[in-house]
């Protein structure tokens, strides 16, 4: 176990190092630099001072070493484009927004999806089953993007039930300003509904054909008891292991939604920062999001063992 954890940790450090270096050199490879837009109109002297302030006067390799050493101390530096903006401040301001959006999507989408999955599996072959299957294919086949635009047009534009864009701020950041969050949440939750309904249905149908279900039936257990005690418990394994992945995906998955509804979240800023070649911000966000993602992958691996004792602990031989 200890050996496994150490190996995973080394891999994590290596991965983060690789992604940070790759991001640095990729952004360096883009022609031009982040300051030119601001500096071109300035006199030569001020321009030099500006370049010096951000360290852009140094050669690339020197800046690479500097950036990496500072990164190890947890300092990603200041934004090249917006003076005074740091990665830390950005995370503080914008992460709660993205986190609330992601959480609302997941809670609504996963709950509805699982319920639909259970209904479809228990009423297999009936009209309800076909409706759920049809609905999930429909929901999977319509991109976030189009859902977002459609909902915005119909419910915010034509019917005026909800505001078109915006997001609660200040004391409403976590609880409150619900009318702003309805449409973005709906937009994002459809894909969860579809994928979890399908996932649970498939997994439940797998379990239904197992011998222990037959045993339970022949013991005379009621249908409800079989579903609750035997089928659901076992068919939740793929769901449990899929959940952390969804958390990971919902961070980057909301990029489009944040863009459609002008939500000041972390994804929207990432796209802006990449367009501005804002190296320090891009580097910081990439590293932090990757770190989060890797940790989630690790949790997933551990969860496999926790929810299904039949799987050996990673790093352990049978």
């Amino acid at each position, binding site marked *: 176990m200890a050996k496994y954890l150490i190996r995973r940790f080394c*891999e994590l450090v*290596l*991965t983060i190092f*690789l*992604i940070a270096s*790759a*991001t640095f050199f*990729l*952004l360096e*490879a*883009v022609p031009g630099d982040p300051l030119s837009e601001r500096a071109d109109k300035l006199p030569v002297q001020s321009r030099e001072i500006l370049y010096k302030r951000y360290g852009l006067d140094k050669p690339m390799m020197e800046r690479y070493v500097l950036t990496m050493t500072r990164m190890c101390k947890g300092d990603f530096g200041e934004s090249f484009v917006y003076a005074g903006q740091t990665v830390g401040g950005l995370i503080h301001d914008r992460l709660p927004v993205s986190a609330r959006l992601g959480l609302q999507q997941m809670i609504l989408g996963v709950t509805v999806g699982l319920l639909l999955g259970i209904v479809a599996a228990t009423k297999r072959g009936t009209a309800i089953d076909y409706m759920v299957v049809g609905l999930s*294919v*429909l929901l*999977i*086949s*319509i*991109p*976030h*993007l*189009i859902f977002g*635009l*459609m909902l915005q*047009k119909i419910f915010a*534009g034509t019917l005026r039930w909800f505001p078109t864009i915006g997001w609660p701020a200040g004391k409403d950041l976590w609880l409150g300003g619900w009318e702003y969050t309805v449409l973005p949440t709906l937009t994002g939750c459809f894909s969860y509904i579809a994928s979890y309904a399908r996932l649970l249905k498939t997994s439940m149908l797998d379990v239904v054909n197992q011998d222990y279900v037959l045993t339970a039936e022949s013991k005379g257990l009621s249908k409800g008891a079989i579903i609750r005690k035997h089928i659901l418990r076992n068919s939740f394994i793929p769901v449990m292991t899929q959940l952390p992945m969804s958390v*990971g995906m919902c*961070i*980057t*998955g909301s*990029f*489009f939604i944040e*863009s459609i509804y002008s939500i000041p979240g972390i994804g929207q800023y*990432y*796209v802006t920062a*990449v*367009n501005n*070649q804002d190296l320090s911000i*891009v580097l910081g966000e*990439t590293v932090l*999001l*990757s770190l989060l*993602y*890797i940790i989630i*992958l690790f949790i997933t691996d551990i969860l496999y063992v926790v929810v299904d004792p039949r799987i050996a602990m990673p790093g352990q031989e049978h």
Partner: protein
Amino acid sequence: MLTPDKFKIVGYTQEEANKIDRPTISYWQDAWRRLKKNPVAMVSLVVLCFLVIMVIIGPHIRGYDYITMNVAEKNQGSSAKYWFGTDYLGRDLFSRIWVGARASILIALVATALKLIVGTLYGAAMAHFGGWVDDILMRIIEVLNSLPNLLITILIMMVLGNNMFALLVALSITAWCSTARQVRGMIKQLKETEYVYAAEVLGAKPLHIIIKHYVPNMLSILILNASTAIPQFIFTEAGLSFLGIGLTAPEISLGVLISQGQKTLDFYPSQLVYPCVVLCVIVMAFNLLGDGLRDALDPRLRQ
């Protein structure tokens, strides 16, 4: 009581006993038969064929060029002259949508082909060499897999610029990993099977084993892999182009058309609706066909 004298021989010949009544059916014939029985899959197959024909001949049907502007007739709704209306520069939307769909489908197909080819070769190398080569190649996949795809895609698009080549690289750079893993697992499993041993013992050449045993067994998995990858690529392309980091005007794809349609959404919603509908139909057809193929090809689902 059953006694031997209660049975009598009604007469048979050796030939009759060995005769096989029904024609032998290969795996692929059987899969095709199953697919034909699935109405949903067949409808989507027909729809896909129709779409492929349309993206080839669609832009020429109405005789309007997809780039010729006609400012006198801009932002028109559907009419007999312009079936899908015109955009903000007076370009025929019907022609533009099919040209855009052509780009989207082409990108998805090429990216899928790249994913499958790279993934198969990589996976085959892992399974074939084994040992430390396998270990190192696997670590590379793990590193690539632990990166959020969208971040990488956006970064690569930034560096290589907004063109078709960059988009293909960006889309397929991490996509091949899952294929490589599947192929590796599959070949490792196949290597141990009795019929491959038998073929080896009987003196079959490696090429023969690859063609006769490995390829047919992996083909169904690769086809399923492709059928889930294509809609994904179409999605991602549209999303990136919408955010302005995929293809950008004057190049067109469905994503570009959707982002242009969004700008005039309040006044001329049809400019957004048509490309969206075409995109959804394409993706849905691929998804439904994929589901049908899974039922037809996956031996575990057979009853």
